[in-house]
């Protein structure tokens, strides 16, 4: 039971939605899958006057490929990603990450875009979308704009989205690459990340390395990426970048893990992840979906 009152609207167009958002500054929430929002309403973590459900707006549920650009609409669920042939062929890393999110009953509703809009520090989409250098596309009452994912996460549960904007879709460049998402949980099954590593590597040995649940937001490590750039993997290089991890992350101690444990295990996950991502680029790595920790 939710012990509060709010108005619910389900606009049929993007324009109508953005005007509703603009008309209720400070007291409006966008609803897509609702797996975070409905829980937050119940917990009294949010108290909107208006909830704007975007599920009737056309074209927001698309997954399509334009050349080498993968387009993912804001109503695409984790289940959709796991079942998409396009994703399986061009960005299996998205499916690997999706499989680790909560449970099927959540994945059937929860959206990829909602995950980065909720922007909790352990959000599974964060490290992977950072490693993909994703572009976030938004529309507001005065037009559309793009935000680089590197500028997206601005704090715990905070993003660069303005309150009157709706995220319409993400775009991800998907030339040939290898990728990995390594997520540590307290047990196999349904859990939030204690720590997570997302890596993408391209044939020119350009590496992208991102972490989740070890800082107030998902983060990329420019220093580790720079150290790796242009180099094939060897033990010395891996040891070098693993040793950089404690300076790159700022984990906390909470009920799921201590800061010390998170720091140590992130190094272990980076080591295994790099080997897997480079192996996958070469076609010899573990199958996508293989649990590495």
């Amino acid at each position: 039971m939710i012990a509060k009152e709010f108005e619910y609207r389900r606009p049929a167009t993007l324009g109508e939605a953005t005007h509703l958002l603009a008309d209720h500054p400070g007291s409006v929430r966008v609803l897509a899958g609702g797996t975070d929002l409905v829980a937050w309403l119940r917990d009294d973590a949010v108290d909107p006057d208006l909830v704007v459900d975007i599920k009737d707006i056309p074209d927001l549920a698309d997954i399509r490929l334009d050349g080498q650009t993968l387009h993912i609409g804001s109503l695409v669920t984790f289940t959709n990603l796991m079942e998409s042939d396009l994703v399986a062929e061009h960005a299996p890393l998205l499916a690997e990450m999706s499989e680790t999110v909560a449970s099927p009953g959540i994945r059937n509703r929860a959206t990829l875009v909602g995950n980065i809009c909720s922007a909790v520090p352990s959000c599974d989409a964060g490290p992977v979308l950072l490693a993909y250098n994703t572009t976030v596309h938004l529309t507001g009452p005065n037009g559309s704009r793009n935000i680089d994912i590197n500028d997206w996460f601005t704090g715990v549960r905070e993003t660069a989205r303005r309150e009157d904007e709706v995220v319409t879709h993400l775009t991800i460049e998907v030339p040939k690459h290898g990728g990995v998402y390594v997520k540590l949980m307290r047990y196999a099954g349904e859990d939030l990340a204690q720590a997570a590593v997302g890596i993408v590597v391209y044939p020119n040995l350009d590496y992208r390395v991102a972490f989740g649940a070890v800082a107030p937001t998902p983060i990329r490590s420019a220093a580790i990426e720079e150290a790796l750039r242009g180099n094939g993997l060897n033990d010395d290089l891996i040891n070098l970048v693993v040793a950089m991890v404690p300076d790159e992350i700022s984990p906390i101690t909470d009920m799921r893990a201590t800061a010390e444990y998170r720091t140590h295990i992130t190094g272990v996950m980076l080591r295994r992840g790099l080997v897997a991502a480079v192996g996958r680029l070469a076609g010899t790595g573990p199958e996508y979906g293989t649990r590495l920790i």
Partner: protein
Amino acid sequence: MELEIKVNGEQWALNVAPADVLLDVLREQVGTKSPKIGCERGDCGSCTVLMDGRTVRSCLVLAVEAEGHQIVTVEGISYQGLSELQDLFLRINAFQCGFCAPGIVLSATELLEHNPNPTRHDVQEALAGNLCRCTGYEPIIEAVLGAGQPKVGLDRPATGPAEGDRP
């Protein structure tokens, strides 16, 4: 707000508030008591229902979101008698207190719909969001695995104990 939904094939016209969650509306207005109030935050799976054939946590769906959608609860999959899976749950004794059983049967039903011959790992993954505090899961996994397999040695009647079985 006016809400029109189909629950187990039956059309309902209801009056709900925006803050009413689907779980409460199903239990209190429709009178379908199989979805249970557990954690009310999507972790335990006891409120699971099928929405257009896919499992959802009815505690995390606003009732107004279900407008125009088809909801099926465990009552709805047994209206023509028990499903094969439910039959196996009975024969293998795959639940004890029964609180989690409707959610687990629906999660397993969704799995078998998409993957008629699941591996043990597939079953574990499919049920990862459904907590059971009685069984230790083993008989549940056996029942779901069995539903995809030919029946061997399960010759007791489908709907209850055989004559001579101890109560």
